[in-house]
């Protein structure tokens, strides 16, 4: 059982005190532009998920604490949490750089655009 740390209220607890919310940084296409969502885009949004060996970026909710959602970076091999960061934020720059595979592709343009000062909080 994992130990999870909430970056919002500071609570630390067993994973049963938290709620796992699946993959992070999924964009809901209809929020951006409801008129032009292709079948393929909707399918990807609903069903296509990454399953990396190594760094994974995911959502958690502080169920028994402050009730807030947050992001976490977890190594799926070692189960180590590398960082937690705000639900509207991008991961710390060094972790975006450390991502591999599909995540690396996902973060590429964000790294190009992001200024180093916009780093999330690392824990």
């Amino acid at each position, binding site marked *: *059982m*994992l*130990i999870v740390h909430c970056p919002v209220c500071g609570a630390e607890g*067993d994973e049963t005190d938290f709620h796992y*919310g699946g993959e992070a940084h999924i964009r*809901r*296409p*209809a*929020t951006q532009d*409801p*008129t032009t*969502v292709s*079948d393929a885009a*909707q*399918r990807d*949004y*609903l069903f296509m998920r990454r399953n990396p060996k190594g760094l994974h970026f995911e*959502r958690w*909710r502080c169920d028994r604490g402050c*009730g*807030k*959602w947050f992001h976490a970076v977890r190594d799926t*091999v*070692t*189960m*180590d949490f590398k960082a937690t960061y705000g*639900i*509207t934020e991008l991961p710390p720059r060094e972790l975006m750089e450390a991502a591999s595979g599909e995540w690396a592709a996902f973060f590429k343009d964000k790294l190009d655009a992001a200024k180093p000062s916009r780093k999330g909080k690392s824990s």
Partner: protein
Amino acid sequence: MSGKPYRLAQGGRLIDRSKKVSFTFDGQSMTGFAGDTVASAVLANGQRVFGRSFKYHRPRGVVGLGSEEMNALVGIGEGPRHEPNLRAPQVELHDGLIAQSQNRWPSLNFDIGALNSKLSRFIPGGFYYKTFMWPQAFWKHVYEPMIRRAAGLGKAPAGSDPDTYEHMHAHCDVLVIGAGIAGLAAAEAAQAAGARVIICDETPRFGGVADLSAGTIDGAPQLDWVHTRAKLLAEAGNVHVMTRTTAVGHWHHNHLMLFERVSDHDPEGLARGTPRHRLWKVRAKHVILATGALERPIAFANNDRPGIMLATAARGLVERHGVAPGMKGVVFTNNDDAYLTALSLKRAGVAVAGIIDVRQGTDSAAARDARNAGIEIIPGHAIAGVESGYGGLSLSGVKIAPWRKGQGRVVNESRLACDFIAMSGGFNPVVNLWCHNGGKLTFDSGLQSYRPGKHHDRIQAVGAANGTMDLAAALAEGYAAGEAAVKDGEPKAGRSKAESAPQRPLEPIWFSPATGKYNEGNKHFIDFQNDVTAADLELAQREGYESVEHTKRYTTFGMATDQGKTSNLNGLGVLAEATGKTIPEIGITTFRPPYTPFSFGSIAGSLTKNLFLPVRRTPIFRWHKAQNAVFEPVGQWRRAYTYPRAGEDKHQSINREILAVRNKVGLLDASTLGKIEIKGPDAAEFLDRVYTNMFSTLKVGRCRYGLMMNELGFLIDDGVTVRLGDDHFLMHTTSGGADRIAAWLEEWLQTEWTQYKVFVTPVTEQWAQFAIAGPKAREVLSKLGPDFDISAEGFAHMAMKQGKLGSHPVRIYRISFSGELSYEVATPANLGRGLWDAILSAGAEFGIEAYGTEALHVLRAEKGYIVIGDETDGTVTPGDVGLDGLVSKKKADFIGKRSLEQSFLRSAGRKQLVGLLTEDPKDVLPDGAYAVRAVKDKPPMEMIGQVTSTYYSPTLDHSIAMALIENGRSRMGETLSFPLDDKVVKAKITDPVFYDKEGSRQNV
């Protein structure tokens, strides 16, 4: 086979010969001594057979020293206190203990299932897959009843468990698992550095096998050192010492479960109310695994006969309990350690016919000691078979033959008379816990076994568990690990030093050939508990099961309750030889928790009966109880299902309550209804996003029924939402959905529409809420003295008012789930009971009756109203239930909208909600009954839909049902067939609204 005096005249360091203990084994009275185990005491009484094997029903006796025991499983205790499948060498004897052998029928010495042994050519590896699949009727009428009676491991206890169990949570800096030499050293070092330490051992005492091993510490016997360390740890303020405690599993971030047998050995404590077992959930910063090593059996022909045991087990019986395994034994080994067993036996006065060592030569310290003790050593030989009589119940000798690796046939056999065998095929580090959480293993060619490799958690193995068999090295490793686990732990001077004689390397022997063929009565057992032989593994190979994981599942090797403790490596060795591969090339199967089985009671802890789940009660709960209401669980709530009066059964009371609502007036406690306040400048826009229909156009003081979908386009909730103000709404959800929907709304606000300024506040418990429904509802309301207009025009359907009913402050909504004129009245929860009583007295003259949830459901079904979870199952769209009209065409976006346009949700042939009227009006269809396209004599029949709600309607005096039927709305008037177990019910498809289609009753 009984009656022989196996208790030695002296010796046995754990037993107290002055304390006799009486117990029974299979109903037979026996005596032992305090300090005995069930294994030692039963053996001392001359009883060698402890049970029958799972598949072949071969007689089996004690093999192991402790938790590795795979044969001698016993049931302990009677009735509700019976516990099956305990390992006899681990069960401590106490006065009055009742032990039962298992898996034998009708008796231990005569067993009908042993016939399986004769039929064994028909029960090869994979026989479950091969035989039991065909013919089908054989399974049901022959195999299954036979197996259920004749096999099965143990029986379940009868009745409810009278004992108590506890859960404990603990945190520590260092958890040391295993209190042998290495574990004690690690704990000592960690505690000296100031760490909070927990040290546990599955046995009742510390020391591991220090009493059975060679070598000294600080020049004295190992046990002396063990005693001083045990005392030191027990007295240290920063150490929690736990005996009789097995670490059963290791999970992520060093989360471990420890199973403590608190009072199994202490019936008096149990009677005083001491918990029987405790389950500890421990979070450790560091884990030190000092779990030791387990001895391997050797696969020779009929190596499962009672009297054949591991060399350490034989040594333990003699040294610890003063029990001889037999009158005359042979030691069969491939290593030096087993020589100690020969010496123990000899010292205790038990005849040793010889040490049969597969290795050539006798140039070792161990051999020298044996020779000096006058024990014959037969090097370069192996056991080719055993001589037994009485259906395998007795052992009279062994056949031995020269051993050369890879040799197919045995020549030059000779015979040794003996009645027991102590065998040792080497030792396997106990790596189970290492592997539970993904630890890697590495093959050690010296041990011919696996030892711990890499691990991503902070866990370290020491001593024999790490493959470090040398005493001095194990001790040093323990100290070092204890120091390393504590950040600033500095090596301390004056550490103890150990000495032991060097050992000759072992020589692997995975299979010792016999004279006959494999299956002609010559079984070489690998997995004793699941009756898997070397031949079974080789057969699986020949049949193409190349992966060891497939072989495991096909043959069931390593899958019994012992989790392959003694069988795993031997099986891999056989597979390696059968394929010409090395053992690392074969791979290894996964060790899974638990290390040893632990009790259901400990898993439940104190969370039983009333403490199993908290019960939520409405403010009216006591009134319901006083009316003798029948309750039903709705989520965690207990709701009144119906209120039977004297002489009424449930059906009669439900029908009475329904007719009261239809003809007079009824009162329902609807307080459990989910209530969520939604407030903020963006509240209306937010509701437009989460509901399928429009809420921004709702006027203040009005109510609207809304549908909620998930992003897949499937219905997840419904209910009436009220606009209390421009920026303020009250949402009603289903009773079971209140928490889920509140969390759902929060998620969207926090993660998607983060710009919305909206608060979501669950207020379900803040309000008591009642429905006053029926033609007389307005008259009851009037009687209560409203300070607001309640006329039909002044308070229209789907309107809302706030004010007072007499002295009661209320919010009141004119909404209806019954189709009758109906008001839902809400008042602060603490005032609920007063209002409830006031309504009942005001309604008395109109014949008001309380109605329960079943009447509520029948009333709504008569009106064709859906219930989320009845008419929907997570794959149902608004269109499927005929509510397309509530899906907005105007709104650009709401949750689920885009998915409704996906082709598979718009395709023809989807199931649609319809009503059903059975041909026989008294025939009520069962819930979930399937409609078929065509009735056939027997299944399979093509199913075209299913019943979602079904009731007897007293209003219509007719059975009614709702169903989801393929293309249902275009089949109005068709008659469908519903095949049941004993008949076929026919029903006509109708509109799902059975009563008052025009809605004239509620619009008055």
